[in-house]
């Protein structure tokens, strides 16, 4: 369903994604794990038509995201890592707008919005503007929105960041249900290893833009002779904290953006 070969993304001299290759088959739940700044989000952006790769090939359901934008966009849904709601609109309006953009039939629109808002306990606040919501509520709304239409592929970029265990549980139960009943392929990133362990059928670990290991959770544990996925992850990526490299990537991105912006 997703096929990535020798994918590279460079920002100036900096290589954010460095020659990665992987396959995700249909109906699979695939976890993409890595420390901060490893290149997870950049990869997702290239898979979801938001960013053009420097080199390498990407295929989603046989289509190239860099060329067949609209066709590819019809096939996936995404929950972004950072906010993407319209703060001035109400919760209901945000979801309604999403339904219209994704051509969810009018008949099922209302019922689906109600079901998801209820599932994430936001139904009572549906007519409040999003700017009055707390961080956790916005996150929940964002997830609810991502699940409104049933895509072939669902991208979840650190969806559970800042959520309480109840909501995380709801989310993963729902995602697994979608996967089993609708055969939705799921591509997720998370920092919670036990989540990846629970839901993902296969895992790839990325660090410094390169994939350092791929396989099922038991395989990764055996190969690193670790007891838990977390230990395996640390064995593969080292235990140093990556704040600096994050800053570096962000700074470089910022610089390349500023340069683009001030070019006249």
């Amino acid at each position, binding site marked *: 369903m997703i096929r990535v070969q020798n994918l590279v993304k460079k920002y100036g001299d900096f290589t954010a994604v460095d020659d990665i290759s992987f396959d995700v088959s249909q109906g699979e739940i695939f976890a993409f794990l890595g420390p901060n700044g490893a290149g997870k989000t950049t990869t997702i*952006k290239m898979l*979801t*038509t*938001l*960013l*053009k790769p420097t080199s390498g090939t990407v295929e989603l359901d046989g289509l190239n995201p860099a060329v067949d*934008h*609209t066709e590819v*966009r*019809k096939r*996936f849904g*995404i929950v*972004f890592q*950072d*906010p*993407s*709601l*319209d*703060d*001035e*609109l109400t919760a209901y*309006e945000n979801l309604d*707008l*999403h339904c*219209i*953009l*994704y*051509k969810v039939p009018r008949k099922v629109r209302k019922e689906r919005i109600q079901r998801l808002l209820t599932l994430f306990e936001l139904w009572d606040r549906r007519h409040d*503007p999003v700017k009055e919501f707390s961080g956790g509520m916005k996150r929940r709304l964002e997830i609810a*929105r991502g699940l409104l239409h049933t895509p072939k592929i669902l991208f979840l970029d650190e969806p559970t960041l800042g959520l309480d265990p109840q909501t995380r549980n709801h989310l993963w139960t729902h995602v697994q249900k979608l996967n089993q009943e609708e055969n939705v392929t799921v591509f997720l990133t998370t920092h919670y290893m036990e989540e990846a362990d629970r839901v993902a059928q296969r895992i790839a670990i990325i660090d410094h833009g390169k994939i350092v290991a791929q396989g099922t959770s038991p395989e990764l544990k055996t190969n690193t002779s670790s007891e838990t996925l977390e230990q395996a992850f640390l064995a593969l990526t080292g235990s140093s904290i990556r704040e600096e490299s994050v800053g570096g990537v962000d700074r470089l991105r910022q610089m390349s*953006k*500023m340069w*683009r*912006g*001030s*070019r006249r």
Partner: protein
Amino acid sequence: MNAIYVLWIRQLKRYVRSRARIVGSLGQPLLFLVALGFGFGPVFQKAGQGNYIQFLAPGVIGMTILFSAVFSGIELIWDRQFGFLKETMVAPVPRIAIMIGRTCGGATVALAQGVIVILICYAAGFRSTNLASLPFALLFMALIALMFTAFGTAIASVLSDFQAFQLVMNFLIMPMFFLSGALFPLLGVPRALQIVAAVNPFAYGVDGMRAALIGGTAHFGAPLDLAVLSVITALLLALGSYLFSRIQL
């Protein structure tokens, strides 16, 4: 089609809900009308040019639309920073539809502001000499709104921060306004200034509105105004769509 509609409605909702923006954006035209209109009125009269408020009102209405439209286009930077842009960019909708929806929404908001300012001008003593040509005035207003929303969108597609926006305002939009004949008659000004006005699209917008609202005093003439505005609007819409379609996040 639905996507265009829903993005258009979104802009309108945002506008209606931010009362601060509505009130705030009316302060400037009011100030221009009172300070310049009443301040320079006597001088203008003595110079034999007639009632200055009559002359100034179309310019101030045009100014409101110009600033409001550019700002609406620039809201794109806002949406990019607050993330909403991503939501629309991954939707299975051609980018041209997104651009058209946004631009129509922004232009409608700018046009609404312009209509409010017409009413303010009426309160300040402005009277249209030919009410029958009000639809023509609205047509010119709509063209100014569309043209500069597209212009703002084009600029915002290549910029990613608000500091750069300040630069655009000070070096492009302000000169366009001040060197357009919105505040003074272009007849008899130095040749250099006339040339600058002749290549300034906003000058044609003001001229067209003036022709429609008070008649007889058009510098370029309404047909030329209409032709120039239509062509430039079409070009800017094309440019805006192209740059918008190339946005990477």
